[in-house]
């Protein structure tokens, strides 16, 4: 039986046109994807996937804020801690929103409770997207 060596032990995402820093620093798409939704995929020239991921995560985060969702600022109990961990998944979106004073401190209406969940889940989805960009970079996924 003959085996073709084409494509074996090669990273399909690596090519000569990749920027030098991207070839040297394997975690760049992961970190960029965490800081800015979709940026990890954009770095790897996955424009369509990156745009859809960015639109979904930005949309969810924005709708959460528009619903007057809460941005967790500290961790008084375990639920706050989990909420803060989810919010931090949004990367720069969370930091900039906190700096601008967006989001409410106390949830007072039902839609604000939905909004709080939207913001947390947007962060968790962003972490999944960033890990996906890392998998694309390492060749674990094509």
């Amino acid at each position, binding site marked *: 039986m003959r085996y073709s060596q084409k494509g074996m032990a090669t990273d399909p995402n690596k090519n000569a046109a990749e920027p030098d820093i991207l070839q040297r620093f394997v975690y760049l798409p992961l970190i960029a994807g965490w800081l800015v939704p979709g940026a990890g995929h954009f770095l790897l020239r996955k424009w369509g996937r990156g745009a859809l991921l960015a639109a*979904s*995560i930005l949309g969810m985060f924005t*709708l959460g804020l*528009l619903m007057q969702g809460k941005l967790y600022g500290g961790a008084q109990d375990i639920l706050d801690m989990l909420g803060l961990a989810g919010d931090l998944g949004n990367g720069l979106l969370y930091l900039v929103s906190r700096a601008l004073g967006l989001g409410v401190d106390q949830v007072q209406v039902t839609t604000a409770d939905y909004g709080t969940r939207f913001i947390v889940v947007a962060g968790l989805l962003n972490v999944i997207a960033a890990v996906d960009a890392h998998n694309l970079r390492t060749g674990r996924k094509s």
Partner: protein
Amino acid sequence: MFRPSHFAAVVLFALFASVVFGITQRDTPRRMLRYGIYCFVLFVASAVVLSWVMFLIAR
């Protein structure tokens, strides 16, 4: 301020989450689309079924 109904919030949540799940959990565009639709239907259907269950329990 944006004030969606509970069902509208469920549909929006399902839409955004399904897009991310579809793209990140499958390899080819066709399989991404199919998995995204599958997740969306499961999200919405399970919310509807659980709502009816809670409605019947509360009666």
